[in-house]
């Protein structure tokens, strides 16, 4: 029994030893074998061509394996001393004394070796570097020196080998990547670009100009399918007189004329040219066809599915699967900015016209609104476009353009869009309205409910400015959206024409700009508060309008003008911590402290009389969202008190009685001395 055990272990032990030793031999031999010149091609070619002397390869400088190459990398000048290069053999000892430092690249091998073998190299210099690490866990015998050295830097002479190395080690490449072939789905998915075709048959996407970093319009922005969006950006010009009629972005016609929308992207599937993969398929098909003539037609017909159906000569613009734009409604503004009836008949929109006598550019596009009617995967069925045209005077250098796109499901009733369910969603407008009391027709009771505007962007609003910073006439205002702190300001210009007489008017204008017309009185607590559930609405706290009256003072000052309004929204998260639902606790409208505005003129403007010069005052409104969530606090039980007691004879040698801590001075000295002794001898 014992003998069999013994034989078993004996053999396994030897086998394992043999495997390990052979593995060792392999690892040490591997770098050496890579260093050998691998030219099997030359040896096979040798018998056919008898010893061509010119074919002998030039001997390549080879370095021994696993050695440190480049022990003196700073010796760059041949037969002359390099400054601060202590290992340069050209430098005399006098030279070396003038060196401030030694520049040589200090060879940093594995510092776990007990004694560094390269120290000897540096011992001849006057600068001693001792990298010895002589601790217990240094490497005493190193059977794997190859780890410190590079291997396999053989010159590559075939392109195949080059390609192999490239595939293994290449990280980035500047060569052109094979662009993934444009794939046109059978129908639009949300976020997809809406494809258009212009009169010449060129394919494009429906654009929605967005503001770039300088708030200028970025025309390359693309509208996403099913993504309702309203953007606003600035169009600038150098000279309105020249660019009014020529600039394409001010002309309404370029937004829809000569343009059609693809019903589905499937329209373009047939227009795709035969792809490159398709051609390679045909090439292989041809080569196989040479060998087997039986199946020539099969691969060719499958490789080009598009060309069989689509005629290359027809214009894509005439395709029946394209949807025309229809002109919906055009809003016109007169030169004062009031909305008037348009002076032209429907069916087409006139381009901008520059009136040289008045200096106005009429019929300029101020806003574009696309309304896309779709039918799900059936694609787009109709596209309507609406414009707001207005007049801009040539003294202005820019105009604010608004673009919007809305997607409507075909034959669907427009639903009321909530701002959250139930908690407010960040970015959604604050649901606000006014409380109304109506008499119920059935029971005759007084019913209270909230009246909310159908335009969700006019619920709770802040002032917004025009492109040149002046206050807008009420109507175009920035909606207050949940979770976004915002400050907006605009400039009112006050002219020194007996300023005191307009003080009240001025304050009314400012208040109007701050609040808008018919400011809401109630804000919904939840994003989905019902209109008839008045309890789910909180009244806006604070004053409806400035309390103090504005009065004139002397001829240049308006006293007690309120120039700012701040909305503070207190909200708190409810529900699970992982799924917080913001709930509005209170909203306060606060007017700034009244201040005196005094007309002051500067320098030459004063001397010119100053009657026509205006002074601008900034009117500010802001909204702040304050998170008043109370996070849960943990109530922990007290730590248990541990009732411990030492054994009565714990201090036995020093103390015999059971009374604890009755040490004599002498014993304390003994104990301390013992502890100190133990610590010192450690």
């Amino acid at each position, binding site marked *: 029994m014992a003998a069999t055990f013994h034989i078993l272990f004996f053999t396994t032990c030897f086998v*394992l030893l043999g495997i390990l030793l052979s593995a*060792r031999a392999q690892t040490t031999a591997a770098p050496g074998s890579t260093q050998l010149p691998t030219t099997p091609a030359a040896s096979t070619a040798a018998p056919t061509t008898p010893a061509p002397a010119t074919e002998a390869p030039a001997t390549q400088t080879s370095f021994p394996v696993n050695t440190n190459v480049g022990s003196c990398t700073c010796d760059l000048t041949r037969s002359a001393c390099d400054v601060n290069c202590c290992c340069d053999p050209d430098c005399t000892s006098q030279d070396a004394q003038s060196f401030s430092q030694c520049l040589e690249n200090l060879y940093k091998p594995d510092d776990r070796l007990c004694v560094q073998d390269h120290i000897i190299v540096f011992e001849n210099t006057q600068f001693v570097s001792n990298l010895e690490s002589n601790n217990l*866990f240094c490497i005493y015998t190193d059977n794997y020196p190859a780890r410190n050295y590079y291997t396999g830097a053989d010159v590559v002479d075939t392109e195949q080998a080059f390609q192999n190395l490239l595939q293994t080690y290449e990280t980035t490449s500047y060569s052109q990547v094979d662009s993934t072939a444009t794939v046109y789905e059978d129908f639009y998915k949300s976020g997809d670009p809406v494809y258009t075709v212009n009169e010449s048959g060129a394919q494009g996407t429906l654009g929605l100009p967005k503001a770039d970093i300088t708030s200028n319009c970025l025309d390359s922005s693309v509208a996403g399918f099913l993504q309702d969006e309203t953007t606003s950006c600035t169009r600038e010009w150098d000279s309105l007189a020249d660019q009014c009629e020529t600039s394409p972005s001010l002309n309404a016609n370029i937004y829809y004329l000569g343009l059609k929308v693809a019903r589905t992207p499937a329209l373009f599937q047939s227009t795709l040219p035969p792809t490159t993969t398709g051609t390679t398929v045909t090439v292989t098909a041809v080569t196989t066809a040479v060998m087997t003539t039986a199946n020539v037609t099969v691969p060719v017909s499958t490789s080009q599915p598009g060309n069989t159906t689509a005629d290359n000569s027809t214009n894509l613009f005439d395709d029946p699967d394209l949807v025309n734009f229809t002109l919906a409604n055009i809003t016109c503004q007169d030169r004062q900015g009031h909305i008037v009836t348009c002076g032209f008949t429907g069916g087409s929109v006139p381009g901008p016209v520059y009136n040289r006598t008045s200096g106005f550019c009429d019929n300029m596009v101020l806003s574009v609104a696309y309304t896309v009617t779709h039918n799900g995967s059936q694609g787009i069925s109709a596209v309507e476009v609406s414009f707001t045209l207005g007049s801009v005077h040539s003294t202005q250098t820019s105009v604010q353009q608004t673009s919007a796109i809305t997607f409507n499901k075909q034959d669907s009733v427009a639903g009321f869009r909530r701002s959250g369910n139930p908690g407010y969603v960040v970015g959604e407008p604050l649901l606000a309205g006014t409380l109304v009391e109506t008499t119920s027709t059935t029971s005759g009771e007084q019913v209270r409910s909230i009246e909310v505007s159908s335009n969700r962007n006019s619920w709770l609003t802040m002032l917004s400015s025009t492109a040149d910073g002046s206050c807008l006439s009420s109507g175009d205002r920035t909606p207050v959206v949940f979770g976004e702190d915002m400050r907006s300001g605009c400039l009112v210009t006050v002219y020194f024409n007996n300023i005191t007489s307009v003080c009240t008017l001025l304050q009314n204008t400012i208040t109007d700009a701050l609040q808008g017309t018919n400011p809401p009185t109630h804000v919904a607590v939840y994003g989905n508060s019902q209109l008839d559930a008045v309890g789910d609405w909180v009244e806006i706290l604070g004053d409806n309008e400035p309390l103090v009256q504005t009065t004139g003072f002397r001829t240049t000052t308006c006293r007690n003008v309120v120039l700012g309004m701040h909305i503070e929204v207190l909200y708190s998260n409810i529900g699970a911590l992982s799924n917080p639902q913001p709930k509005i606790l209170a909203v306060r409208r606060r007017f700034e402290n009244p201040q005196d505005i005094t007309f002051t003129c500067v320098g030459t403007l004063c001397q010119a009389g100053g009657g026509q010069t205006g002074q601008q005052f900034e009117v500010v409104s802001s909204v702040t969202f304050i998170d008043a969530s109370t996070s849960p606090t943990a109530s922990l039980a007290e730590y248990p008190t541990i009732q411990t007691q030492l054994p009565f004879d714990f201090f036995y040698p020093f103390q015999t009685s059971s009374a604890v801590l009755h040490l004599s001075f002498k014993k304390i000295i003994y104990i301390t001395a013992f502890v100190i002794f133990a610590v010192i001898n450690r």
Partner: protein
Amino acid sequence: MAARGRQTIILSSLPLQVLYYLNGWYFGFFWIAEALMFVYKGQVLPFPSTNLASEIVLLFLLGIIEVIRLFFGSKGNLTERIISMVVSILLCLPVLFTVLFFLLWQTYVLRAEVILCAILLVFLGLELVLGVAAMVSFARAETFR
């Protein structure tokens, strides 16, 4: 001697038994230290593929063989059994090679390993000499029985 009756003479070697006892304790320490050093080396040093694993396997094999060797050696010495001593002595050979491997041929030999393996080799050598001597004395006593 036989004429004096049934008097027994203890042939077991006391130094050998002391060595086996000390060797047992030392080998436990050696094995744990070596295992910890493999952990250290595996963390700190780069290893060619499969070297570390096979070396650890070898360490486990060494543990098994050494325990068997010490068991047979000490029991054989106490019971004066030749066959046990033979097994113990023969098992010296794989133990010797394995310790030599850890001393010389493993991927990285740390200085601590040199010390540990050298002490183990001293134990091994002394036990080999004394074990052979004890076995010879057992064998000679066997012929007189």
